[in-house]
């Protein structure tokens, strides 16, 4: 018998008898293109209005209409916003997946379903609430064409009644979600009430789940990471944007267009202080960004893995010719087209060394929507300071899901335009060489066309310190060594790791990006369920700095938690660490396309630590139907 039997700790047979308040997940299974996103957002907003910490994650297909989609809302009184593996409450609206969705539930879970699907015959250990959606929608929506869209709002009304959501707050959330569309608000409010009334009359409460008001969300905003990054770019003073639509990054530039049109148009002239171009492809996007940055503009693009692959050649040019560029990589599942609408941290390794020859690139890695906002600003400073491409490594989970956050703070500091030659510096230097290391930090001074400073010829071919064409071995070595020196300098400029050291902890965790949320929850699980204490380093950038080494040195074993198959961060670390440090590293990997969850980390770590973990769930879904798990 194992020292720890997790199944006992999570024994559902007993716990489900007790009331479960503000600590469960709801999964809504619908067909995409059916307006369910509105209903789901109204539900999420209602919980936040009730002061309950909640998060929503969309698991959608690469399709416009007609395929299965799942939306999971997790309420957590302790504030956990990572994905929860188990579904406690299912809303089964999609005939195609309903059976499988029900079969994979934990005993004791509850199901609201479309009555004709007759799901209640499938299992006897669940709570079932049948709802005749078609019958309910007809009277509230006379226009038959709109019924398909309004129908989903009915489940919000049902859930409000069953789970104790304040209907007034839900109507407020509806108003917020639909904005000025008065007709749609009226129609959907009717559907909400129809759902509520039906539940009140026909669905007596049988499950243990309920919401109760809390006071944990006051002042919070709800925003997706892509929009947060867009606001950051605008505040950073971006002037040139070139992009090519690709999931999951498109909404970054689309949000940016919206904000810029509103806040960056000169009020007196009506003219824009920016140029945003939808390019012909990702290659051209980066080409435009490089051309603009070379000419002195703050410029950026946003893409996903396939775009990163296409940008490889231009990235090498910008690295070698030393041109700033800010590139957002909202990572999705690869390789190739992969799972375009699912999340991953799979581009780390290829981006770190993107392009041929010896190249290394700065990557910064936000974990939260707030960091999407702040790091977007830092990215421009770093790109101009180091005259090099800077990659902001987001992912689909962060970029496309809505996250509650404290409001963003106005940037109090100015911006860093880097080493730009001016008359005074030129006088001091005497002679200027474009690629000359004046201060020993590897960073040369640059000029831009039209700034009145000396011109130079920028090239991706061999060049010497003066920027002249050169194939001389000594020139090449000197230049490449300086570029390496510049990268060393970057170690102290990039966002530093955040470290939580726990006295006596022999185990260290390293995670980055969205894995952060499941990681912090897993640390609590380990501490509370097993007394395993962990310290934690949240990595925020590449290149690494000394703190990473110190962290490894002060722990016996270090788990590197990632959302990819090949332990990409760990591999990057191996390149710089000594063998004795490498020997301490272990991997926790999650790469199903769904966001990583705490329980998976906890189980994996315990198993690697020699505990016998009894998996409490069986295999939950066949390979063919992605989504539910």
């Amino acid at each position, binding site marked *: 018998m194992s020292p720890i039997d997790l199944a006992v700790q999570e024994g559902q047979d007993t716990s489900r008898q007790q009331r479960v308040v503000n600590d469960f997940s709801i999964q809504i299974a619908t067909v995409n293109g059916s307006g369910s996103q509105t209903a789901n957002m109204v539900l999420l907003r209602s919980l936040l209005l009730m002061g309950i910490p909640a998060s929503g994650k969309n698991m959608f297909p690469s399709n416009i209409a007609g395929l299965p989609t799942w939306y999971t809302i997790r309420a957590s009184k302790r504030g956990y916003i990572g994905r929860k593996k188990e579904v406690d409450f299912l809303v089964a609206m999609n005939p195609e997946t309903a059976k499988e969705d029900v079969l994979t539930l934990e005993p004791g879970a509850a199901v609201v379903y479309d009555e004709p699907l007759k799901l209640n015959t499938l299992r006897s250990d669940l709570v079932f609430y049948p709802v005749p959606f078609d019958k309910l929608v007809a009277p509230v929506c006379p226009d038959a064409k709109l019924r398909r869209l309004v129908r989903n709002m009915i489940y919000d009304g049902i859930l409000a009644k069953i789970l104790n959501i304040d209907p007034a707050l839900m109507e407020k959330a509806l108003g917020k979600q639909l904005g000025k569309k008065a007709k749609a608000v009226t129609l959907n409010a009717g559907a909400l009430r129809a759902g509520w009334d039906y539940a009140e009359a026909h669905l007596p409460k049988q499950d243990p789940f309920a919401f109760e008001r809390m006071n944990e969300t006051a002042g919070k905003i709800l925003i997706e990471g892509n929009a947060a990054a867009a606001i950051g770019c605008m*505040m950073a003073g971006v002037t040139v944007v*070139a992009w090519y639509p690709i999931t999951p990054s498109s909404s970054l530039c689309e949000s940016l267009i919206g904000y810029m049109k509103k806040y960056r148009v000169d009020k007196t002239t009506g003219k824009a*202080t*920016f140029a945003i171009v939808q390019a012909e492809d990702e290659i051209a996007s980066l*080409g*435009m960004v*490089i051309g603009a940055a070379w000419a002195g503009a703050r410029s950026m693009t946003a893409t996903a893995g396939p775009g990163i692959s296409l940008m490889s050649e231009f990235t090498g*040019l910008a690295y070698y010719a030393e041109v700033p560029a800010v590139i957002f990589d909202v990572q999705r599942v690869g390789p190739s087209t992969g799972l375009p609408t699912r999340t991953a941290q799979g581009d780390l390794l290829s981006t770190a060394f993107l392009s041929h020859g010896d190249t290394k690139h700065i990557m910064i890695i936000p974990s939260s929507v707030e960091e999407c906002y702040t790091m977007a600003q830092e990215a421009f400073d770093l790109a101009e300071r180091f005259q090099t491409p800077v990659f902001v490594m987001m992912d689909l989970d962060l970029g496309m899901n809505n996250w509650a956050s404290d409001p963003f703070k106005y940037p109090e500091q100015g911006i860093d335009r880097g080493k730009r030659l001016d008359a005074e510096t030129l006088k001091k230097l005497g002679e200027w060489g474009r690629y000359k290391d004046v201060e020993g930090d590897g960073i040369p001074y640059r000029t831009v066309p*039209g700034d009145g400073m000396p*011109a130079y010829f920028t090239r991706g071919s061999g060049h010497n310190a003066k920027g002249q064409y050169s194939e001389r071995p000594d020139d090449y070595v000197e230049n490449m060594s300086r570029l390496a020196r510049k990268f060393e300098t970057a170690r102290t400029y990039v966002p530093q790791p955040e470290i939580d050291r726990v006295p006596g902890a022999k185990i260290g965790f390293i995670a980055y990006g969205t894995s952060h949320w499941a990681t912090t929850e897993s640390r609590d699980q380990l501490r509370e369920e097993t007394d395993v204490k962990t310290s934690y380093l949240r990595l925020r950038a590449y290149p690494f700095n000394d703190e990473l080494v110190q962290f490894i040195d002060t722990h016996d074993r270090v788990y590197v938690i990632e959302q990819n198959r090949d332990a990409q961060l760990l591999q990057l670390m191996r390149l710089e660490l000594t063998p004795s440090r490498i020997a301490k590293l272990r991997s926790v990997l999650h790469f199903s396309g769904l966001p990583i969850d705490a329980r998976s980390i906890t189980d994996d770590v315990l198993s690697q630590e020699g505990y016998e973990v009894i998996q409490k769930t069986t295999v939950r879904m066949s390979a063919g139907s992605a989504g539910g798990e």
Partner: protein
Amino acid sequence: MSTPIKINRIGLEPAVYKGGKTTLCAGCGHNAISERIIDAFYEMGVEPSRVVKLSGIGCSSKSPAYFLGSSHGFNAVHGRMPSVGTGAMLANKDLVAIGISGDGDTGAIGIGQFVHLMRRNLPIIYIIEDNGCYGLTKGQFSPTADLGSKLKTGVVNDLPPLDTCALAVELGATFVARSFSGDKKQLLSLLKAAIAHRGTVMLDVISPCVTFNDHEGSTKSYAYAKEHDDPVEEVTFVPFFEDITVDYDPGTTQEVTMHDGSKVYLKKLEEDYDPTDKITALRRLHETSRRGEFATGLIYVEPDRDDFLTQLNVVDEPLAFLSLERVRPGREALDDIMESLR
């Protein structure tokens, strides 16, 4: 008595417009084009610090190093110069961009970016130094090689050529011209008119490769080009700053006023030719190529269409030089956004 120093209208000497020493083959058509570019920018009195020289990869793309040495230059990656040029112009609309490409750089790897550059009507002078072959990799056919043209090795091209001028007309370029590196007068007039134009200039210049494609059987040799050059009109350019009145017969000469007020006089040769009509332009291009000849001159011009930067409605100052106050919205903007997200 000292000889007076020759200067242009902004007081600069011709030497200011020169570049580094060419490393291309002696007799290469590209060198002649570089010389005409130097002449054109000097004669038009363009401030070199306002000019950006861009190129892709190949023999042609080396040439920006050989003219306008005091201008910023950017030798980018193969076939992707249009995007880099676009970015530079977005950053600073006051710049004068000249892009040098080749027939391989444009017609093969770069055809996608070429297409979209033409569509946007970005203000740029895009020159194809067209020799029908890849010089830098020793003479393989390029996409502009004519059907039946023969390599030195005897290999015959059996694929139809791309006509970059016909494409440019079709795609929306507002100044499309073709010339021959051996025709100094026509090339210089066209280059000066190109500088006076605001929009995309696509100038295809037949520029023989003396090393790999100047032999009997090649359709891009000096001998072949001289023989088959078929000018659509005689081009005379009069810049806006020169007070010259040209007496012309409206029956035989067409006057086109460029964006900056300069005038181009196009004297008709054998038949009527109206370069402001797309259909006329395309018909002439097809007719001449069917005869195995190539039409030269100002093929198509649309001097008044809005360029890309005008369409984007950007502020008058270069975006690159806007101060932080202009590009960072105030506190109230962020408050406003935060409020909308609650």
